[in-house]
């Protein structure tokens, strides 16, 4: 089968990894299409890094199978490695080496040489906004710049797929936005991106998002699809004054007909209702019937956080 004929560049079937008796990754199935930004969410220890390591040919699966860029991860890890870029969660660059020394090393590690290598290193410096700063020691770079350099270095050999394991952890919001701009450009140019993150605002930028809970992939869809499926109805945000008020509101509306879910949200309460209470007038009347003021109510779009909470609480 020619690579062009198959729109999926990652295919995962029943992928499982045990550590002793512990199922770190448990029977996971999904496909990723060319050029897709595929986000992977999950709490600490959910199995995100373990999945990525298996897909990068770094860790042998205990069960199931997967192909990455047409290569079988268990049987041909060497071919996988030639076709992917990887930014690990823990390490990205050698801190004691200069920017150019790092790029030179990884370029050679990927087999680049001569004029091609020089050109790619020039591109990488531009991508990380480090033109003319190649002699800086990597340790002295700001966290955000360092991560963009690490990304550029993982892309030196122009891999069709790149795996990013929490690339923006500990990076300030402005730098994160810059980082994601690069990711979206890559995607537009046809590179497939598999990225894990703890930032839900970043997950909103993904084409599709998978959610891992205790080694299992419990949901997988576009951000909108996830919200439609897992947070149906209309979300009303009701203001309270002081924590006690918010808790009173929550207690007063929970379990009422037409109320699907109630979730404290800071000083406010998110009340998800079905069609019966979806109209502002109907909801105002409902609050009044429970003896609650109806003057501070807003309709809000559910976020992935609501999806996350709905799924984790289940």
């Amino acid at each position, binding site marked *: 089968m020619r690579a062009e004929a198959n729109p999926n560049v990652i295919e995962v079937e029943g992928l499982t990894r045990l550590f002793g008796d512990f199922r770190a990754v448990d029977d996971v199935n999904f496909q990723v299409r060319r050029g897709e930004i595929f986000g992977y969410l999950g709490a600490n220890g959910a199995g995100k890094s373990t999945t990525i390591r298996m897909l990068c040919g*770094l860790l042998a699966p205990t069960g199931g199978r997967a192909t990455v860029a047409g290569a079988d991860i268990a049987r041909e890890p060497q071919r996988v490695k030639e076709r992917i870029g990887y930014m690990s969660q*823990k390490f990205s660059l*050698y801190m*004691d*080496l200069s920017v150019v020394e790092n790029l030179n090393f990884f370029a*050679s590690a990927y*087999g680049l*040489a001569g004029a091609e290598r020089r050109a790619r290193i020039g591109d990488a410096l531009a991508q990380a906004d480090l033109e003319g700063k190649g002699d800086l020691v990597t340790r002295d770079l700001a966290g955000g710049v360092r991560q963009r350099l690490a990304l550029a270095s993982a892309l030196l050999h122009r891999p069709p797929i790149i795996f990013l394991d929490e690339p923006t952890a500990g990076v300030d919001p402005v730098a994160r936005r810059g980082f994601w701009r690069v990711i979206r450009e890559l995607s537009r140019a046809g590179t497939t991106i598999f990225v894990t993150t703890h930032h839900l605002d970043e997950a909103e930028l993904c084409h599709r998002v998978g959610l891992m809970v205790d080694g299992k992939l419990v949901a997988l869809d576009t951000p909108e699809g996830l919200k439609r499926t897992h947070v149906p109805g209309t979300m009303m945000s009701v203001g309270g004054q002081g924590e006690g008020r918010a808790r009173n509101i929550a207690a007063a509306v929970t379990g009422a007909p037409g109320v699907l879910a109630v979730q404290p949200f800071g000083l406010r309460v998110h009340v998800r209702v079905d069609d019966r209470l979806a109209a502002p007038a109907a909801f105002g009347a409902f609050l009044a019937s429970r003896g609650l003021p109806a003057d501070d109510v807003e309709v809000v779009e559910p976020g992935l956080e609501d999806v996350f909470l709905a799924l984790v609480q289940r």
Partner: protein
Amino acid sequence: MSPFLRRTRAMALKEFRHMARDPQVVLLALAMPLVLILVFGYGVSFDVEHVPLAVVDQDRTAESRAFARAFSAAGTFDVVATPDDPRAVEPLFRQSLARAALIIPEGFTRARARGEAATAQMLVDGSDNATATIALGYGDAIGLTLAQAELPRGLSAPLEARVRTMFNPSLRSAVFIVPGLIVLVLVIVSVMLTALTVAREYEQGSMEQLFSTPVGRLEIILGKLAPYFLLGLVQVLLVLVVGVTLFDVPLRGSVGLIFLAASIFLLGELTYGLVISIITRSQMVAAQIAAISTFLPALILSDFIFPIDNMPPPLRFVSSLLPPRYLVHALRSIMLRGNGLETIVSDLLPMAGFFAVMLLIATRRFRRTVA
């Protein structure tokens, strides 16, 4: 260039850069051989005078008395006692009243008159290593001079100054120390550094990043060895230069051969360092294991300080499994006796075997799993 060579070179270059960013390490690696050779070298080469000498003359002839006088005349020895019985010597040594003893047996003169080999015995208190070495040398020289002066021409020296050391039969001179020192320096610095470098990559997580590239395990291993291998050769050069210029250590054989032997030794020991690192994945543990498991054999089982011939069989067996004794033997053979390749092949082969085994273990144990 093949991809294999290109990636190996990239690894080696990266390691060189880590090393260059840490100049203290390089400085330490170069200062260590200098300090050690100065300590060991000067430790054994003070000038010795007035060594208290006991003379046991059982021959009691004019000739034997002249022979004994020749010893006190040189200024090196002072005759402090003239017991009749050789058994009196040991108590004198124990009380530090004498450090050397000359024993001229009965029949000494008669044997010489008949032109047979006449044997006088020189005993030296070996517990004072430095003095003993020098005293032995002087004793030997005086005996030979006498022999040549007093003998009728045409006869080969039938007077043998048969020297024996008490308490420390393994007495070593500066000349003997240099080969052992080379071994010691190489294992202390180079093995330690290689053991640290792989463990560091595991600890900082860069090993995982390396494994995600097409770089192979043999490429990583060879690239890691390269800079420390060169550093080791520089250390050998330093010890040789200082040994030859300051301590008159003879260099009778080929320098190329010395470096060949040292190279094979280094490859084995460095790869052993990598094996430690690959298995422990921790800089702390690797450093401790490297220090103990290489320093002790190099010091104790190398024939450097303790002669292997005098060891109990189990220790002798252990020493035969480890490379240090082979390099010490090969270096002595080349430097002191001027022997060529054909003689030291029997030392090179076991060292090469050790390297092969370590390389096999290193590549086997490497990259089984990623932490």
